[in-house]
Protein backbone atom coordinates (compact mmCIF):
# COMPACT_ATOMS: atom_id res chain seq x y z
CA UNK A 1 0.00 0.00 0.00
CA UNK A 2 1.41 3.36 -1.06
CA UNK A 3 1.71 5.57 2.00
CA UNK A 4 0.84 9.18 1.31
CA UNK A 5 1.84 12.28 3.19
CA UNK A 6 -1.79 13.35 3.61
CA UNK A 7 -5.29 12.04 3.08
CA UNK A 8 -7.93 14.76 3.04
CA UNK A 9 -11.57 13.90 3.67
CA UNK A 10 -13.99 16.13 1.77
CA UNK A 11 -13.34 18.38 -1.23
CA UNK A 12 -14.80 21.80 -0.42
CA UNK A 13 -12.70 24.92 -0.68
CA UNK A 14 -11.08 24.29 2.69
CA UNK A 15 -10.02 20.76 1.79
CA UNK A 16 -8.79 21.86 -1.64
CA UNK A 17 -6.84 24.78 -0.14
CA UNK A 18 -5.14 22.35 2.25
CA UNK A 19 -4.45 19.91 -0.56
CA UNK A 20 -2.88 22.52 -2.83
CA UNK A 21 -0.77 24.10 -0.11
CA UNK A 22 0.62 20.71 0.89
CA UNK A 23 1.18 19.69 -2.74
CA UNK A 24 2.99 22.98 -3.37
CA UNK A 25 5.31 22.04 -0.53
CA UNK A 26 6.07 18.70 -2.18
CA UNK A 27 3.69 16.53 -0.16
CA UNK A 28 1.81 13.61 -1.73
CA UNK A 29 -1.89 14.26 -1.25
CA UNK A 30 -5.07 12.29 -1.91
CA UNK A 31 -8.49 13.91 -1.48
CA UNK A 32 -11.39 11.53 -0.77
CA UNK A 33 -14.83 12.84 -1.75
CA UNK A 34 -18.01 10.88 -1.00
CA UNK A 35 -20.03 12.46 -3.81
CA UNK A 36 -19.53 11.99 -7.56
CA UNK A 37 -18.44 15.59 -7.96
CA UNK A 38 -15.88 17.66 -5.98
CA UNK A 39 -16.47 21.10 -4.44
CA UNK A 40 -18.78 20.82 -1.40
CA UNK A 41 -20.55 24.16 -1.13
CA UNK A 42 -18.84 25.29 -4.35
CA UNK A 43 -21.27 23.00 -6.23
CA UNK A 44 -23.42 24.47 -8.99
CA UNK A 45 -26.53 22.95 -10.50
CA UNK A 46 -28.65 23.57 -13.59
CA UNK A 47 -32.31 24.52 -13.69
CA UNK A 48 -34.29 26.03 -16.55
CA UNK A 49 -31.12 26.19 -18.68
CA UNK A 50 -29.34 28.40 -16.14
CA UNK A 51 -26.51 27.74 -13.70
CA UNK A 52 -27.13 28.30 -10.00
CA UNK A 53 -24.65 28.19 -7.14
CA UNK A 54 -25.37 26.33 -3.91
CA UNK A 55 -23.00 28.32 -1.69
CA UNK A 56 -20.69 30.63 -3.65
CA UNK A 57 -22.94 33.67 -3.95
CA UNK A 58 -20.39 36.39 -3.33
CA UNK A 59 -17.01 36.84 -1.80
CA UNK A 60 -14.88 39.69 -0.47
CA UNK A 61 -11.22 40.73 -0.35
CA UNK A 62 -10.84 40.04 -4.07
CA UNK A 63 -9.12 43.17 -5.41
CA UNK A 64 -5.46 42.60 -6.36
CA UNK A 65 -3.41 42.66 -3.16
CA UNK A 66 -6.40 41.79 -0.97
CA UNK A 67 -6.30 38.53 1.00
CA UNK A 68 -8.57 36.21 -1.01
CA UNK A 69 -7.09 37.36 -4.32
CA UNK A 70 -3.59 36.81 -2.94
CA UNK A 71 -4.40 33.38 -1.54
CA UNK A 72 -5.98 32.14 -4.78
CA UNK A 73 -3.07 33.58 -6.79
CA UNK A 74 -0.58 31.89 -4.47
CA UNK A 75 -2.35 28.58 -4.99
CA UNK A 76 -2.27 29.10 -8.76
CA UNK A 77 -6.05 29.06 -9.13
CA UNK A 78 -6.88 32.74 -9.54
CA UNK A 79 -8.41 33.59 -12.90
CA UNK A 80 -9.55 37.12 -13.68
CA UNK A 81 -12.25 35.70 -15.92
CA UNK A 82 -13.88 33.91 -12.96
CA UNK A 83 -14.74 37.00 -10.91
CA UNK A 84 -16.80 40.11 -11.41
CA UNK A 85 -16.60 43.19 -9.18
CA UNK A 86 -19.96 44.01 -7.60
CA UNK A 87 -21.45 47.50 -7.88
CA UNK A 88 -19.09 49.81 -5.92
CA UNK A 89 -21.86 52.35 -5.36
CA UNK A 90 -23.93 49.74 -3.52
CA UNK A 91 -23.09 46.03 -3.56
CA UNK A 92 -25.55 45.15 -0.81
CA UNK A 93 -28.93 46.70 -0.20
CA UNK A 94 -30.55 46.23 3.22
CA UNK A 95 -34.29 46.76 3.36
CA UNK A 96 -35.88 47.38 6.74
CA UNK A 97 -39.51 48.43 7.18
CA UNK A 98 -38.54 52.02 8.01
CA UNK A 99 -35.41 52.57 5.92
CA UNK A 100 -33.07 51.23 3.22
CA UNK A 101 -29.26 51.18 3.20
CA UNK A 102 -26.96 50.60 0.24
CA UNK A 103 -23.49 49.53 1.27
CA UNK A 104 -20.80 51.03 -0.96
CA UNK A 105 -17.32 49.62 -1.53
CA UNK A 106 -14.55 51.22 0.54
CA UNK A 107 -14.20 52.29 4.15
CA UNK A 108 -14.48 56.07 3.70
CA UNK A 109 -17.48 55.56 1.41
CA UNK A 110 -19.17 53.22 3.89
CA UNK A 111 -18.66 55.68 6.75
CA UNK A 112 -19.96 58.56 4.61
CA UNK A 113 -23.01 56.62 3.38
CA UNK A 114 -24.10 55.53 6.85
CA UNK A 115 -23.38 59.02 8.22
CA UNK A 116 -25.77 60.49 5.64
CA UNK A 117 -28.46 58.19 6.98
CA UNK A 118 -27.57 58.64 10.64
CA UNK A 119 -26.07 62.17 10.83
CA UNK A 120 -25.91 62.21 14.64
CA UNK A 121 -24.06 58.91 14.71
CA UNK A 122 -21.05 59.81 12.61
CA UNK A 123 -18.55 59.23 15.45
CA UNK A 124 -20.01 55.81 16.28
CA UNK A 125 -19.99 54.77 12.63
CA UNK A 126 -16.40 55.87 12.10
CA UNK A 127 -15.36 54.09 15.30
CA UNK A 128 -17.11 50.87 14.29
CA UNK A 129 -15.26 50.64 10.99
CA UNK A 130 -11.97 51.58 12.68
CA UNK A 131 -12.48 48.73 15.14
CA UNK A 132 -13.26 46.37 12.25
CA UNK A 133 -9.99 47.31 10.52
CA UNK A 134 -8.09 46.94 13.78
CA UNK A 135 -9.64 43.57 14.57
CA UNK A 136 -8.68 41.95 11.26
CA UNK A 137 -5.06 42.99 11.76
CA UNK A 138 -4.98 40.32 14.46
CA UNK A 139 -5.60 37.51 11.99
CA UNK A 140 -2.15 36.55 10.67
CA UNK A 141 -3.77 34.09 8.24
CA UNK A 142 -5.94 36.87 6.76
CA UNK A 143 -3.54 39.78 6.77
CA UNK A 144 -0.65 37.39 5.99
CA UNK A 145 1.49 38.66 8.79
CA UNK A 146 4.37 36.27 9.43
CA UNK A 147 5.70 38.09 12.48
CA UNK A 148 2.59 38.18 14.63
CA UNK A 149 2.19 36.20 17.80
CA UNK A 150 -1.21 34.56 18.24
CA UNK A 151 -1.78 35.82 21.77
CA UNK A 152 -2.67 39.50 21.27
CA UNK A 153 -5.59 38.52 19.05
CA UNK A 154 -7.45 36.80 21.81
CA UNK A 155 -9.38 39.79 23.16
CA UNK A 156 -11.34 40.11 19.92
CA UNK A 157 -12.71 36.62 20.54
CA UNK A 158 -13.81 37.48 24.06
CA UNK A 159 -16.21 40.28 23.10
CA UNK A 160 -19.42 39.86 21.12
CA UNK A 161 -20.47 41.99 18.16
CA UNK A 162 -23.54 43.16 20.13
CA UNK A 163 -21.38 44.31 23.07
CA UNK A 164 -19.18 46.42 20.78
CA UNK A 165 -22.08 47.92 18.82
CA UNK A 166 -24.23 48.71 21.88
CA UNK A 167 -21.25 50.45 23.46
CA UNK A 168 -20.96 52.66 20.36
CA UNK A 169 -24.59 53.51 19.69
CA UNK A 170 -28.04 53.20 21.18
CA UNK A 171 -29.68 54.00 17.85
CA UNK A 172 -31.70 50.85 17.06
CA UNK A 173 -31.68 51.45 13.30
CA UNK A 174 -27.92 51.85 13.18
CA UNK A 175 -27.56 48.76 15.36
CA UNK A 176 -29.67 46.80 12.86
CA UNK A 177 -27.53 48.00 9.99
CA UNK A 178 -24.32 46.96 11.74
CA UNK A 179 -25.84 43.57 12.60
CA UNK A 180 -27.17 42.90 9.10
CA UNK A 181 -24.20 40.76 8.02
CA UNK A 182 -25.01 38.21 10.74
CA UNK A 183 -27.03 36.57 7.97
CA UNK A 184 -23.73 35.63 6.33
CA UNK A 185 -22.52 33.48 9.22
CA UNK A 186 -25.78 32.60 10.90
CA UNK A 187 -24.74 33.65 14.42
CA UNK A 188 -26.76 36.12 16.49
CA UNK A 189 -25.08 39.47 17.36
CA UNK A 190 -24.90 38.51 21.05
CA UNK A 191 -23.17 35.23 20.30
CA UNK A 192 -20.67 36.03 17.55
CA UNK A 193 -17.16 37.17 18.45
CA UNK A 194 -16.55 40.69 17.16
CA UNK A 195 -13.31 39.57 15.50
CA UNK A 196 -15.03 37.04 13.27
CA UNK A 197 -17.83 39.35 12.27
CA UNK A 198 -15.14 41.93 11.47
CA UNK A 199 -13.58 39.52 8.95
CA UNK A 200 -16.85 39.33 7.03
CA UNK A 201 -17.37 43.10 7.10
CA UNK A 202 -13.78 43.94 6.18
CA UNK A 203 -13.60 41.55 3.25
CA UNK A 204 -16.86 42.82 1.75
CA UNK A 205 -16.31 46.52 2.33
CA UNK A 206 -12.82 46.32 0.84
CA UNK A 207 -13.64 44.48 -2.37
CA UNK A 208 -16.86 42.54 -2.99
CA UNK A 209 -17.05 40.23 -6.01
CA UNK A 210 -19.38 37.73 -7.56
CA UNK A 211 -18.36 34.52 -9.29
CA UNK A 212 -18.90 34.88 -13.03
CA UNK A 213 -18.78 31.18 -13.85
CA UNK A 214 -19.87 29.79 -10.52
CA UNK A 215 -18.16 27.69 -7.87
CA UNK A 216 -17.73 24.66 -10.15
CA UNK A 217 -15.29 26.59 -12.35
CA UNK A 218 -13.19 27.46 -9.27
CA UNK A 219 -13.27 23.83 -8.11
CA UNK A 220 -12.04 22.68 -11.51
CA UNK A 221 -9.11 25.07 -11.28
CA UNK A 222 -8.19 23.67 -7.85
CA UNK A 223 -8.45 20.07 -9.02
CA UNK A 224 -6.41 20.66 -12.19
CA UNK A 225 -3.72 22.47 -10.24
CA UNK A 226 -3.61 19.72 -7.63
CA UNK A 227 -3.26 17.06 -10.32
CA UNK A 228 -0.49 19.06 -12.00
CA UNK A 229 1.37 18.94 -8.69
CA UNK A 230 0.96 15.16 -8.41
CA UNK A 231 -2.06 15.10 -6.09
CA UNK A 232 -5.37 13.37 -6.76
CA UNK A 233 -9.07 13.71 -5.99
CA UNK A 234 -10.91 10.40 -5.73
CA UNK A 235 -14.66 10.76 -6.15
CA UNK A 236 -17.30 8.40 -4.78
CA UNK A 237 -14.96 7.51 -1.91
CA UNK A 238 -16.99 7.75 1.26
CA UNK A 239 -14.83 7.27 4.35
CA UNK A 240 -16.50 4.94 6.84
CA UNK A 241 -13.73 4.26 9.33
CA UNK A 242 -10.57 5.74 10.78
CA UNK A 243 -8.54 2.97 12.39
CA UNK A 244 -6.73 4.30 15.41
CA UNK A 245 -3.72 2.69 17.10
CA UNK A 246 -1.58 4.45 19.71
CA UNK A 247 -3.33 7.79 19.22
CA UNK A 248 -2.60 7.74 15.48
CA UNK A 249 -4.77 6.95 12.47
CA UNK A 250 -3.24 3.87 10.93
CA UNK A 251 -5.72 3.39 8.13
CA UNK A 252 -8.54 5.22 6.39
CA UNK A 253 -11.24 2.85 5.13
CA UNK A 254 -13.92 3.69 2.55
CA UNK A 255 -17.40 2.28 2.03
CA UNK A 256 -16.21 0.30 -0.99
CA UNK A 257 -13.48 -1.28 1.15
CA UNK A 258 -10.53 0.73 -0.18
CA UNK A 259 -7.84 1.35 2.43
CA UNK A 260 -5.38 4.23 2.63
CA UNK A 261 -2.39 4.93 4.81
CA UNK A 262 -0.91 8.34 5.33
CA UNK A 263 1.31 10.35 7.60
CA UNK A 264 -1.50 12.85 8.20
CA UNK A 265 -5.27 12.77 7.90
CA UNK A 266 -7.12 16.05 7.49
CA UNK A 267 -10.88 16.00 7.88
CA UNK A 268 -12.89 18.80 6.33
CA UNK A 269 -16.20 17.23 7.28
CA UNK A 270 -18.17 18.03 10.42
CA UNK A 271 -16.26 17.35 13.68
CA UNK A 272 -19.07 15.16 14.99
CA UNK A 273 -19.00 13.11 11.79
CA UNK A 274 -15.20 12.94 11.93
CA UNK A 275 -15.01 11.63 15.48
CA UNK A 276 -17.84 9.19 14.78
CA UNK A 277 -15.55 7.55 12.19
CA UNK A 278 -12.85 6.81 14.78
CA UNK A 279 -12.83 3.16 15.85
CA UNK A 280 -11.29 3.93 19.24
CA UNK A 281 -13.17 6.52 21.25
CA UNK A 282 -10.97 6.06 24.31
CA UNK A 283 -8.55 8.68 23.00
CA UNK A 284 -11.20 11.32 23.68
CA UNK A 285 -11.99 12.36 27.24
CA UNK A 286 -15.58 12.11 28.52
CA UNK A 287 -15.51 15.90 28.85
CA UNK A 288 -14.65 16.35 25.17
CA UNK A 289 -17.32 13.83 24.16
CA UNK A 290 -19.89 15.77 26.15
CA UNK A 291 -18.79 19.07 24.65
CA UNK A 292 -18.95 17.68 21.14
CA UNK A 293 -22.41 16.28 21.74
CA UNK A 294 -23.67 19.64 23.01
CA UNK A 295 -22.49 21.62 19.96
CA UNK A 296 -25.30 23.34 18.11
CA UNK A 297 -25.61 23.64 14.36
CA UNK A 298 -26.22 26.89 12.56
CA UNK A 299 -29.60 27.35 10.93
CA UNK A 300 -30.46 25.68 7.66
CA UNK A 301 -31.56 27.63 4.62
CA UNK A 302 -34.53 27.27 2.34
CA UNK A 303 -33.41 28.13 -1.19
CA UNK A 304 -35.23 29.16 -4.33
CA UNK A 305 -33.64 29.19 -7.78
CA UNK A 306 -35.87 31.34 -9.91
CA UNK A 307 -36.21 33.11 -13.23
CA UNK A 308 -37.59 36.62 -13.16
CA UNK A 309 -38.52 39.22 -15.72
CA UNK A 310 -37.84 41.97 -13.16
CA UNK A 311 -35.15 43.93 -14.99
CA UNK A 312 -34.86 46.54 -12.27
CA UNK A 313 -32.87 44.13 -10.10
CA UNK A 314 -29.19 44.99 -10.32
CA UNK A 315 -27.23 41.76 -11.03
CA UNK A 316 -24.18 43.30 -9.36
CA UNK A 317 -26.05 43.91 -6.12
CA UNK A 318 -27.42 41.65 -3.38
CA UNK A 319 -30.65 42.43 -1.58
CA UNK A 320 -31.55 41.70 2.03
CA UNK A 321 -35.22 41.99 2.94
CA UNK A 322 -35.73 42.10 6.71
CA UNK A 323 -39.03 41.50 8.44
CA UNK A 324 -38.38 44.06 11.14
CA UNK A 325 -35.73 46.25 12.70
CA UNK A 326 -35.44 43.85 15.62
CA UNK A 327 -32.01 42.22 15.37
CA UNK A 328 -33.15 39.33 17.53
CA UNK A 329 -35.46 38.33 14.72
CA UNK A 330 -32.94 38.51 11.88
CA UNK A 331 -31.99 34.90 11.85
CA UNK A 332 -35.12 33.44 13.28
CA UNK A 333 -37.00 31.27 10.93
CA UNK A 334 -40.20 31.73 12.92
CA UNK A 335 -42.84 29.21 12.00
CA UNK A 336 -43.12 27.24 8.79
CA UNK A 337 -46.39 28.95 7.96
CA UNK A 338 -45.06 32.50 8.47
CA UNK A 339 -43.07 34.81 6.24
CA UNK A 340 -39.36 34.50 7.10
CA UNK A 341 -37.39 37.04 9.19
CA UNK A 342 -34.99 37.74 6.34
CA UNK A 343 -34.72 36.92 2.65
CA UNK A 344 -31.40 37.19 0.81
CA UNK A 345 -31.62 37.73 -2.95
CA UNK A 346 -28.64 37.48 -5.30
CA UNK A 347 -28.16 37.23 -9.03
CA UNK A 348 -27.16 33.82 -10.33
CA UNK A 349 -25.58 35.24 -13.48
CA UNK A 350 -24.00 38.52 -12.41
CA UNK A 351 -24.14 39.98 -15.92
CA UNK A 352 -27.07 41.96 -17.29
CA UNK A 353 -29.43 39.67 -19.12
CA UNK A 354 -29.89 39.98 -22.88
CA UNK A 355 -33.26 38.29 -23.00
CA UNK A 356 -34.88 40.11 -20.07
CA UNK A 357 -34.92 36.92 -18.04
CA UNK A 358 -32.70 36.97 -15.01
CA UNK A 359 -31.77 33.94 -12.90
CA UNK A 360 -31.79 34.71 -9.16
CA UNK A 361 -31.23 32.94 -5.85
CA UNK A 362 -33.42 33.54 -2.81
CA UNK A 363 -32.48 32.23 0.62
CA UNK A 364 -34.23 32.34 3.97
CA UNK A 365 -33.62 30.67 7.34
CA UNK A 366 -35.32 27.28 7.72
CA UNK A 367 -34.50 24.88 10.57
CA UNK A 368 -33.97 21.21 9.70
CA UNK A 369 -36.79 20.26 12.09
CA UNK A 370 -39.36 21.45 9.53
CA UNK A 371 -38.16 18.67 7.23
CA UNK A 372 -36.93 15.94 9.59
CA UNK A 373 -39.89 13.61 8.91
CA UNK A 374 -38.61 13.21 5.33
CA UNK A 375 -34.97 12.77 6.29
CA UNK A 376 -34.93 9.05 5.56
CA UNK A 377 -36.69 9.33 2.21
CA UNK A 378 -34.58 9.40 -0.96
CA UNK A 379 -33.54 12.60 -2.67
CA UNK A 380 -35.89 13.54 -5.55
CA UNK A 381 -38.34 10.84 -4.40
CA UNK A 382 -39.89 12.60 -1.45
CA UNK A 383 -43.60 12.72 -0.79
CA UNK A 384 -46.24 15.10 -2.11
CA UNK A 385 -46.57 16.52 1.39
CA UNK A 386 -42.88 17.56 1.30
CA UNK A 387 -43.36 19.14 -2.10
CA UNK A 388 -46.40 21.04 -0.97
CA UNK A 389 -44.58 22.34 2.13
CA UNK A 390 -41.82 23.59 -0.18
CA UNK A 391 -44.34 25.39 -2.33
CA UNK A 392 -45.93 27.12 0.61
CA UNK A 393 -42.51 28.14 1.98
CA UNK A 394 -41.66 29.58 -1.42
CA UNK A 395 -44.80 31.70 -1.37
CA UNK A 396 -43.82 32.98 2.11
CA UNK A 397 -40.42 33.99 0.78
CA UNK A 398 -42.00 35.75 -2.19
CA UNK A 399 -44.36 37.55 0.18
CA UNK A 400 -41.41 38.97 2.14
CA UNK A 401 -39.83 40.33 -1.06
CA UNK A 402 -43.21 41.58 -2.24
CA UNK A 403 -43.39 43.72 0.93
CA UNK A 404 -40.54 45.82 -0.51
CA UNK A 405 -40.91 45.19 -4.24
CA UNK A 406 -44.63 45.10 -5.08
CA UNK A 407 -45.29 43.01 -8.17
CA UNK A 408 -42.20 40.81 -7.59
CA UNK A 409 -44.17 37.55 -7.39
CA UNK A 410 -45.84 38.06 -10.76
CA UNK A 411 -42.47 38.54 -12.41
CA UNK A 412 -41.17 35.16 -11.25
CA UNK A 413 -41.76 32.89 -14.23
CA UNK A 414 -40.28 29.63 -12.95
CA UNK A 415 -38.71 28.41 -9.74
CA UNK A 416 -37.27 25.36 -8.01
CA UNK A 417 -36.62 24.94 -4.28
CA UNK A 418 -34.08 23.36 -1.93
CA UNK A 419 -34.17 22.61 1.78
CA UNK A 420 -31.62 21.63 4.44
CA UNK A 421 -32.26 18.03 3.32
CA UNK A 422 -30.82 18.94 -0.07
CA UNK A 423 -27.59 20.11 1.64
CA UNK A 424 -27.53 16.95 3.68
CA UNK A 425 -27.78 14.86 0.50
CA UNK A 426 -25.05 16.62 -1.48
CA UNK A 427 -22.67 17.80 1.23
CA UNK A 428 -23.36 15.65 4.27
CA UNK A 429 -23.64 18.88 6.26
CA UNK A 430 -24.94 18.09 9.77
CA UNK A 431 -28.68 18.80 9.93
CA UNK A 432 -28.22 20.31 6.45
CA UNK A 433 -26.98 23.51 8.08
CA UNK A 434 -25.66 26.18 5.73
CA UNK A 435 -22.81 27.42 7.90
CA UNK A 436 -21.88 24.28 9.82
CA UNK A 437 -21.46 24.66 13.57
CA UNK A 438 -23.12 27.58 15.26
CA UNK A 439 -19.95 29.67 15.65
CA UNK A 440 -20.63 31.27 19.00
CA UNK A 441 -17.85 32.65 21.19
CA UNK A 442 -17.90 29.31 23.03
CA UNK A 443 -16.47 27.45 20.05
CA UNK A 444 -14.39 29.97 18.13
CA UNK A 445 -10.92 31.45 18.63
CA UNK A 446 -9.14 29.85 21.58
CA UNK A 447 -12.24 27.71 22.27
CA UNK A 448 -12.46 26.25 18.76
CA UNK A 449 -12.64 22.52 18.11
CA UNK A 450 -9.52 21.80 16.00
CA UNK A 451 -7.39 22.03 13.96
CA UNK A 452 -5.42 19.76 16.35
CA UNK A 453 -7.12 16.77 17.93
CA UNK A 454 -6.28 14.10 20.48
CA UNK A 455 -5.48 11.80 17.57
CA UNK A 456 -1.99 13.07 16.89
CA UNK A 457 -2.00 12.81 13.10
CA UNK A 458 -5.61 13.91 12.64
CA UNK A 459 -6.27 17.59 11.88
CA UNK A 460 -9.59 19.29 11.28
CA UNK A 461 -10.40 21.94 8.74
CA UNK A 462 -13.49 23.27 6.94
CA UNK A 463 -16.06 25.88 7.81
CA UNK A 464 -16.72 24.13 11.12
CA UNK A 465 -13.15 24.50 12.22
CA UNK A 466 -12.61 28.25 11.91
CA UNK A 467 -15.38 30.27 10.35
CA UNK A 468 -17.92 29.85 7.56
CA UNK A 469 -18.07 31.25 4.07
CA UNK A 470 -15.69 30.78 1.16
CA UNK A 471 -13.10 33.03 2.76
CA UNK A 472 -13.49 31.56 6.27
CA UNK A 473 -13.17 28.02 4.94
CA UNK A 474 -10.19 28.86 2.71
CA UNK A 475 -8.40 30.50 5.65
CA UNK A 476 -9.18 27.42 7.74
CA UNK A 477 -7.46 25.35 5.04
CA UNK A 478 -4.43 27.62 5.11
CA UNK A 479 -4.24 27.44 8.88
CA UNK A 480 -4.64 23.66 9.05
CA UNK A 481 -2.01 22.91 6.42
CA UNK A 482 0.30 25.27 8.33
CA UNK A 483 0.33 22.70 11.12
CA UNK A 484 2.06 20.29 8.74
CA UNK A 485 4.36 22.48 6.65
CA UNK A 486 4.87 25.37 9.07
CA UNK A 487 2.71 28.45 8.70
CA UNK A 488 5.37 31.19 8.91
CA UNK A 489 7.17 30.61 5.61
CA UNK A 490 3.79 30.33 3.83
CA UNK A 491 2.59 33.60 5.38
CA UNK A 492 5.87 35.24 4.42
CA UNK A 493 5.40 34.24 0.77
CA UNK A 494 1.76 35.33 0.80
CA UNK A 495 2.73 38.68 2.30
CA UNK A 496 5.29 39.27 -0.41
CA UNK A 497 2.89 38.23 -3.17
CA UNK A 498 0.18 40.54 -1.81
CA UNK A 499 2.57 43.47 -1.56
CA UNK A 500 3.66 43.04 -5.17
CA UNK A 501 0.16 42.70 -6.59
Amino acid sequence: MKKRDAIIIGSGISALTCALLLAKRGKSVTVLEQYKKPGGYLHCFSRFGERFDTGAHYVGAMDPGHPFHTLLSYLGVYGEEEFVALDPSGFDEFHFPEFTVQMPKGYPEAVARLSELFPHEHAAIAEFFTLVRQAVQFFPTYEFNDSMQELPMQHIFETSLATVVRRLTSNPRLQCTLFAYCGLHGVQPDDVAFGFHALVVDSLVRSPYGLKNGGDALTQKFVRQLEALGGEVLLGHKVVQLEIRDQHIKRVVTEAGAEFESEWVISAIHPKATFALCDDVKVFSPLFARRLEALKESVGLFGISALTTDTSLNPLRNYYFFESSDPQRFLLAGEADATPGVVFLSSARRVPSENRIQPINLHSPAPHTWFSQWRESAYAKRSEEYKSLKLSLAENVFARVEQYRPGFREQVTRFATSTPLTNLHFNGSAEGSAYGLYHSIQNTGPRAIGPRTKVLNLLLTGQNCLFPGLLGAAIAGLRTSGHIVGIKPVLGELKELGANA
Partner: protein
Amino acid sequence: MMEQEIVSKVNALMARGFELSEKDLVPTARLKEDLGLDSLDAVDMLVHLEESLGSRIEGERLMQVKTLSDVYGLVKEAAASKS
Protein backbone atom coordinates in the same frame (compact mmCIF):
# COMPACT_ATOMS: atom_id res chain seq x y z
CA MET B 1 -18.38 30.63 46.03
CA MET B 2 -16.49 29.25 49.05
CA GLU B 3 -12.96 27.93 48.64
CA GLN B 4 -13.96 24.38 49.49
CA GLU B 5 -16.89 24.50 47.10
CA ILE B 6 -14.55 25.52 44.28
CA VAL B 7 -12.11 22.75 45.10
CA SER B 8 -14.79 20.08 45.08
CA LYS B 9 -16.40 21.44 41.93
CA VAL B 10 -13.13 21.52 39.99
CA ASN B 11 -12.03 18.15 41.33
CA ALA B 12 -15.33 16.55 40.40
CA LEU B 13 -14.99 17.94 36.89
CA MET B 14 -11.42 16.62 36.56
CA ALA B 15 -12.30 13.20 37.92
CA ARG B 16 -15.36 12.70 35.72
CA GLY B 17 -14.24 14.68 32.69
CA PHE B 18 -10.78 13.18 32.35
CA GLU B 19 -11.22 9.92 34.26
CA LEU B 20 -8.63 10.87 36.88
CA SER B 21 -8.33 9.35 40.31
CA GLU B 22 -9.49 11.59 43.19
CA LYS B 23 -6.33 10.83 45.14
CA ASP B 24 -4.17 12.44 42.42
CA LEU B 25 -6.15 15.66 42.59
CA VAL B 26 -3.99 17.56 45.05
CA PRO B 27 -3.46 21.33 44.79
CA THR B 28 0.20 20.93 43.82
CA ALA B 29 -0.59 18.47 40.99
CA ARG B 30 0.82 19.76 37.71
CA LEU B 31 -1.76 19.52 34.92
CA LYS B 32 0.67 18.38 32.26
CA GLU B 33 3.32 16.36 34.07
CA ASP B 34 1.24 14.82 36.86
CA LEU B 35 -2.26 14.60 35.41
CA GLY B 36 -1.34 14.06 31.75
CA LEU B 37 -3.54 16.88 30.43
CA ASP B 38 -2.62 18.95 27.38
CA SER B 39 -3.77 22.25 25.88
CA LEU B 40 -6.75 20.59 24.13
CA ASP B 41 -7.96 19.30 27.51
CA ALA B 42 -7.45 22.79 28.94
CA VAL B 43 -9.82 24.24 26.31
CA ASP B 44 -12.50 21.65 27.12
CA MET B 45 -12.06 22.46 30.79
CA LEU B 46 -12.31 26.21 30.13
CA VAL B 47 -15.55 25.88 28.18
CA HIS B 48 -17.07 23.60 30.80
CA LEU B 49 -16.06 25.84 33.72
CA GLU B 50 -17.44 28.90 31.95
CA GLU B 51 -20.75 27.20 31.31
CA SER B 52 -21.11 25.93 34.86
CA LEU B 53 -20.06 29.28 36.39
CA GLY B 54 -22.05 31.36 33.96
CA SER B 55 -19.10 33.74 33.57
CA ARG B 56 -16.16 34.07 31.22
CA ILE B 57 -12.55 33.23 31.90
CA GLU B 58 -9.95 34.75 29.62
CA GLY B 59 -8.72 31.96 27.37
CA GLU B 60 -5.10 33.02 27.55
CA ARG B 61 -5.16 33.02 31.37
CA LEU B 62 -6.17 29.38 31.45
CA MET B 63 -3.41 28.50 29.00
CA GLN B 64 -0.92 29.85 31.52
CA VAL B 65 -2.03 27.80 34.52
CA LYS B 66 0.34 25.08 35.61
CA THR B 67 -1.15 23.39 38.67
CA LEU B 68 -4.55 22.42 39.99
CA SER B 69 -4.16 25.16 42.59
CA ASP B 70 -3.84 27.71 39.72
CA VAL B 71 -7.16 26.44 38.34
CA TYR B 72 -8.85 26.93 41.73
CA GLY B 73 -7.51 30.51 41.78
CA LEU B 74 -8.83 31.26 38.31
CA VAL B 75 -12.27 29.89 39.09
CA LYS B 76 -12.34 31.88 42.32
CA GLU B 77 -11.58 35.07 40.38
CA ALA B 78 -14.21 34.32 37.73
CA ALA B 79 -16.84 33.57 40.39
CA ALA B 80 -15.96 36.79 42.25
CA SER B 81 -16.14 38.92 39.09
CA LYS B 82 -19.63 37.59 38.45
CA SER B 83 -21.01 38.46 41.89
